[in-house]
């Protein structure tokens, strides 16, 4: 299921990232890779604040729809 539809509080695991190679490379370079545990710290109507690999990353809903989690 896409990360954008998840709720804050629980921890998920990234299974797959869709989208262009450029976008995927950008996410991977920042540590957003399949297999990694991710949690939602905060949600706003346009973006998400997520925690993963001991850091916090803000991304907009468009990207969060491309990240599949379990």
């Amino acid at each position, binding site marked *: 299921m896409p990360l954008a539809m998840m709720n804050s509080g629980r*921890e998920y695991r990234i299974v797959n990232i869709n*989208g262009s*190679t*450029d*976008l*995927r*490379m*950008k*996410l*991977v*370079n*920042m*540590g*957003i*890779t*399949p297999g990694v545990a991710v*949690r939602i*710290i*905060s*949600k*706003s*109507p*346009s*973006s998400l*604040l997520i*925690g993963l*690999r*001991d*850091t*916090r*990353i*803000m*991304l*907009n809903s*468009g*990207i969060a729809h*491309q990240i599949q989690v379990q």
Partner: protein
Amino acid sequence: MKKNKLSIALAGNPNCGKTTLFNNLTGARQHVGNYPGVTVEKKEGYRNFKNYALTIIDLPGTYSLTAYSPEELVARNFVVRETPDVVVDIIDASNFERNLYLATQLLELERPMVLALNMADVAEARGIKIDDQLLARRLGIPVVRTVGSRKQGMEELLETAVRTAQETQRTSFVINYGRDVEEAIGKLAPLLAAAQRQLNFPRRWLALKLLENDRDIIESIQKIPESEGATAAAAEARAELQQKLGDDPELLIADFRYRFLGALYREVVTVQDEDALTFSDKIDKVLTNRALGLPIFLGLMWLVFNLVFTLGAYPQDWIEKGVSLLGSWVGQHMAEGDLKSLLADGVIGGVGGVIVFLPQVILLFFAISLLEGTGYMARAAFIMDRVMYKVGLHGKSFIPLLLGFGCSVPAIMGARTLENPRDRLVTILVTPLMSCSARLPVYTVLIAAFFGEQRAGNVLFSIYLIGIILAIIMARVFRSVLFTGSTEPFVMELPPYRIPTLKSILFHMWERSILYLQKAGTIILAVSIIIWFLTNYPTEVQYSKDYAALIAQAETLPQDEVKEKLVREQAGEKLGQSYAGQVGRFIEPAIAPLGFDWKMGVGLFAAFTAKEVLVSTLGTIYSVGAGEEDAASLKDALAADPAYNPLVAYALMIFVLIYSPCLATIATIKRETNSWKWALFSSGYSTVLAWIIAFIVYQGGKLGGLGG
């Protein structure tokens, strides 16, 4: 004794503490410039260490060394082409794997390298223990522990860097990318001998980049005739890998890097306390909360502005007294003549009027530095994202806008962090609408003269608010007319919350405030002298009455009022016929519908150089106009001028808020957009907008019965 020269390049992720380390290592001996051809800041510092003269280069903070951003290109080209004697890669110990991702790529460039394990104390407090000896053995480079905020490990870091720079033997670092990728590298490497010689990059690395479809490297190799076959062979190998492994090779290669790092992490790191919710997360739960985030942010902003103005008022008062004391001292002790008038009216009246606002400017920059240092600024970007999203920008654009309250110049340079050129241009164009600290003196003097103390705060807040609202509207307009297209996807890492050291806050505050002072000593001084000249010359003017005779006649009268009135009238008439008066009258028809007279016209014309010049110009005009016995401040002089009333003052503030950015800002826009077109457009559109809004305010106010 001659010192040996060594250069050290600092690399690392954004937010890894690189800047603090750089400042620790170099102190104040820094030089800031740009890398040639790109808008990426180049910071260099110098340090004498033992027998060495060190040049320390702060490379841009990057996550990787791909060709996706100019920062990454600059970093890798610097390491390879400028051949620093040693590269120091700074690792945030509490974010080990992601930080080491860059380290593996730097290692593959095969340059002498040292790893600085920074903020290991923070990591250990969270139960993350790193075996740095083992890490050093696995990577084949020395590892030094540092704590940037407490200046720990600096000597050892320099010591190790210097030693590593002089070692001739280099251990090679190789990640195994799996059978298929390694096979492809094996095929490509022999074709790249010429490319290696010319580009100076290691051969294995070049092969890897070709497989990763790195645009920059492909282009460079295509220019080398001897390596002609390499790019074609690489494209073939890429297609093969893609088919065999089912994904783009660059993603597979990245995946192997993370696999290597995952294994390394398990080997050298022991996690004792598996508490997912860190301190930083707990704060974020509140500060970035969907319901609470925005009210907390607005409350903080309100607090900042109130503190700036109430606290700033005390030192401002002292400086004001000092300036007026200096003015009267000059008035009493200097011989009559042009020089005295130039000093008292031009320099002290002009520059003094601007210096008075230094405390508030310093406090404002203090607040901005504090917001940045604690990590809250990045949260503001998240909180404001939903607002920015509505105008077609995203939260990241909000940081330059917020910096705009300090000064448009660094704010516009701050827009560099926006990767999308459309977002960048829109942000650059609307940033000057955020009311900068230089406009503050204008509001303060006008508010003090025409609005009571009770209303002062609200009036000022309304001006700032109008600026913000206009910025939002104009962003929307630009986004839908000039730069159409959907909103770009964006990602941004947020730094952890930190308690910044007072020293680092004061350092940033001073770095920015000094520019305001420099401006007072250069542009404003120069403009003040020019304005003084323009208001004093020509000295021979045709008066409508024979003032000399009338004054002589009035001196025989018992009361002084008649004489004083005549003196003021004469000075006013002289000013009206001066060069400045002529300029003002030329402008007057254009600004009369806004309720402005020629004096304001001169002020606005001059304030194009820097907005606070309006205050210094009016100061010069009124002290010249007041004749000899000037004791009243500019505030009182304005209040006494019948040309002004609260409505005119408000319209004037609005105009100053919106109209053309100052020269320094226009020059910055030209540099950042690399085009005069956008710089001139910025100046033009804002002046037209200022006229329209001020017209609506003034004429609307008059219709509403205000300003009588």
